[in-house]
């Protein structure tokens, strides 16, 4: 168990170190997300009430699309120079490889959420109302990262990976996005968090199911 956590931490540190050198993941996501936020400013109704009602959906659309850029980049790190094979030869559990990618993607996503939520609130004069947004963002980003890493692991070996990833990923992520948007909407409307419990339960279930599937199946995906 000790060596599992040692490998996991080493792999995450390596990904973060590459990101520190290249800034290819977070910076690209941030520029993309800010661009969409800026474009929405012109596309949306200027009425505050209309902007508030659509806030949850728009924030999650930004997170989902910019998150896909991180998925491509994070798995691509292992594609360049045949690094995935180097890791598969090494005494590293396949679960540690999978979880390291999930955690790196999760960290990029949650950092993005921590920027986008307040920015949306400031730009569009939509009060956040509650810190409960944080729990929804944590659950939503984890589910996104766990499923995204799993599908990215499947498509990374293929010639059409850039096309296959969104085609396979978006239909499966819909239940998570629906739950995240509905939970966030409840919080934006200032209703008690209890009203969002069915949606939050759906988020938790999604996270547990796809993290478990990823842990069980990643070995077979990358070794065959």
């Amino acid at each position, binding site marked *: 168990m000790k*060596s599992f956590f*040692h*490998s996991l931490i*080493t792999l995450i540190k*390596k990904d973060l*170190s*590459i990101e520190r*050198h*290249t800034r290819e993941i977070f910076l690209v996501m941030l520029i993309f997300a800010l661009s969409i936020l800026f474009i929405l400013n012109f596309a949306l109704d200027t009425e505050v009430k209309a902007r508030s009602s659509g806030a949850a959906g728009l924030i999650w659309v930004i997170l989902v699309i910019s998150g896909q850029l991180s998925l491509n980049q994070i798995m691509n*790190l292992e594609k*360049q*120079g*045949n*690094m995935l*094979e*180097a*890791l*598969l*030869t*090494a*005494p*590293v559990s396949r679960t540690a490889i999978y979880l390291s990618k999930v955690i790196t993607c999760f960290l990029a996503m949650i950092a993005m959420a921590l920027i986008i939520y307040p920015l949306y609130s400031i730009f569009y004069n939509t009060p956040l109302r509650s810190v409960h947004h944080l729990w929804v963002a944590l659950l939503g980003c984890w589910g996104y990262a766990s499923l995204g890493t799993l599908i990215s692991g499947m498509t990374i070996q293929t010639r059409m990976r850039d096309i296959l990833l969104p085609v396979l990923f978006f239909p499966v992520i819909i239940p998570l996005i629906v739950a995240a948007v509905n939970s966030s909407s409840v919080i934006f409307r200032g209703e008690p968090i209890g009203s969002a419990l069915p949606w939050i339960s759906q988020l938790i279930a999604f996270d547990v199911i796809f993290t478990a599937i990823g842990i069980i199946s990643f070995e077979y995906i990358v*070794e*065959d």
Partner: protein
Amino acid sequence: MTAGSADAAELAEPLIVAQNIQKRFGRRKVLKSASLQIRRGECVILTGENGAGKSTLIKVLAGIIKAEAVDRFTFRGKPFPEDDAQRRAIGLISHQPMLYLDLSAAENLRFFAEIYAVPNAEERINSLLQRIGMESRKDDPIRTYSRGMQQRVSICRALLHDPDLLLLDEPFTGLDSKSAAILEELILEAKEQQKAILITTHAPLVIRHLATRFLNLEKGLLVDREPVDREPAQ
């Protein structure tokens, strides 16, 4: 465990045994029934036409891909892959450098030293980099290196954890004469240290002096075969 600490019984046994490996990609059966065993101190040169399945065999032996079927597959006397200690005893060089292009040579080697739990890592990294003449460029990103320099660092990566089995997939490809000489020197040294070595190549005559025996992969089967002079030299 290094050869020095292996006891006599272990030294007498083949380090790696694989019987009747089968592997198919789609409808094409690349390995039909490939069998081999390599003892410590042996350097086996594996030849075969392009697409014969040499790299696939190396990947199966390294535990990167699973064989579709295999009768017996042991490494260090135990079924492979069974534990991390077995993986820790394999060093692999492939066509590609297997290095993170955005990290420096030193950062790459530090990462692998962590993963393989190499004791006195910094000392070992420096001595290997000095050995291959890359110490002065160790802090430059790998992507700024030439192909030959990347391959030299790749050699360091493969030797970093002092493996018992070296799997070298066309390791001389893209190397200049100086780098090739260093690699030959390291292979001979590994042989002397009773490590088992498997090298795939298209130019067996060039490295004939390193070999203890030759294998050829033909139609998915491994056969003993000495190279003949008409084969192209590198």
